[in-house]
């Protein structure tokens, strides 16, 4: 990220730019980018914010595989009935 290596951030500028910076960061891991080491060192609030937001994004990945949540047991029967009355798979909706 050559552009950001040259840039001297203020805390406010850096915080405001976070949506874009996160998007451009490799793997969404802004804290691992050496070009932001200085601002993260000089601005503890921004560093904590980045750390928390990265943590939330990482934790969200474990939600992909559901645990516990399932449709009601009779949903398959409803689907079968719908397919039986409309073999083309059309729905009532």
């Amino acid at each position, binding site marked *: 990220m050559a552009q950001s290596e040259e840039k001297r951030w203020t805390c406010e500028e850096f915080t405001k730019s976070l949506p874009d910076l996160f998007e451009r960061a490799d793997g969404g891991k802004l804290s691992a980018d050496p070009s932001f080491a200085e601002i993260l060192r000089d601005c503890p*609030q921004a560093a*904590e*914010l980045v750390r928390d937001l990265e943590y939330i994004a990482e934790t969200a990945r474990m939600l992909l595989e559901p645990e516990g949540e399932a*449709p009601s047991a009779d*949903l398959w029967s409803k689907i079968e009935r719908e397919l039986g009355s409309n073999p083309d*798979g059309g729905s009532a*909706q």
Partner: protein
Amino acid sequence: MTQPNSTPPAGHFKRNPPIAGEADALERAKNGDPDAFSKLYALHKRRVYTLCLRMLGNVSEAEDMTQEAFLHLYRKLGSFRGESAFSTWLHRLTVNLVLMHLRKKGLQLVSLEETINPSEEDAPKRDFGSRDPRLSGSVDRVTLERAVATLPPGYRLVFVLHDVEGYEHNEIAAMLECSTGNSKSQLHKARLKLREILRENEQAAALQGESK
């Protein structure tokens, strides 16, 4: 509209590895074997339902949309060419159906970009001024799931699509008919809001601990 039409990024393959028995069930279901379609339902019902539930935030609607997704799948199964993981394709089909459902409920006439924007009161506070305690780093999936469920709908949609399902901002922008910048902004606000909720939870738990 509901037909998944683009090849997903490589990350989707990594996050959706093939499931044992899926390929065989898929081929048989394409040839009209009802038991094989039942097998596909059994393999994917939880993830499809959970995706609907997270996007809609309503159990009854999530059940209806799960049913709709599998009926749609039955009709479209023959068009699955294996260019992406089957679950990726099925999820995209489900996302499209849910978004169409949301538009039918009244979001179709106005740009989602405007409609899903929560009010100022819902917006997370700016992080300047006094330093708040940071997250402990021990948020479990149940706590996060509950926090996600309390997000305003617009934030929740983008968070679920990006951070949970792994879609890129350009894909989300196309799906939600908003700009890429808006998708990035909504995601950032969603994460800020979650941080706020999770910190409040941690502080409440700490206070409860102290009072015992």
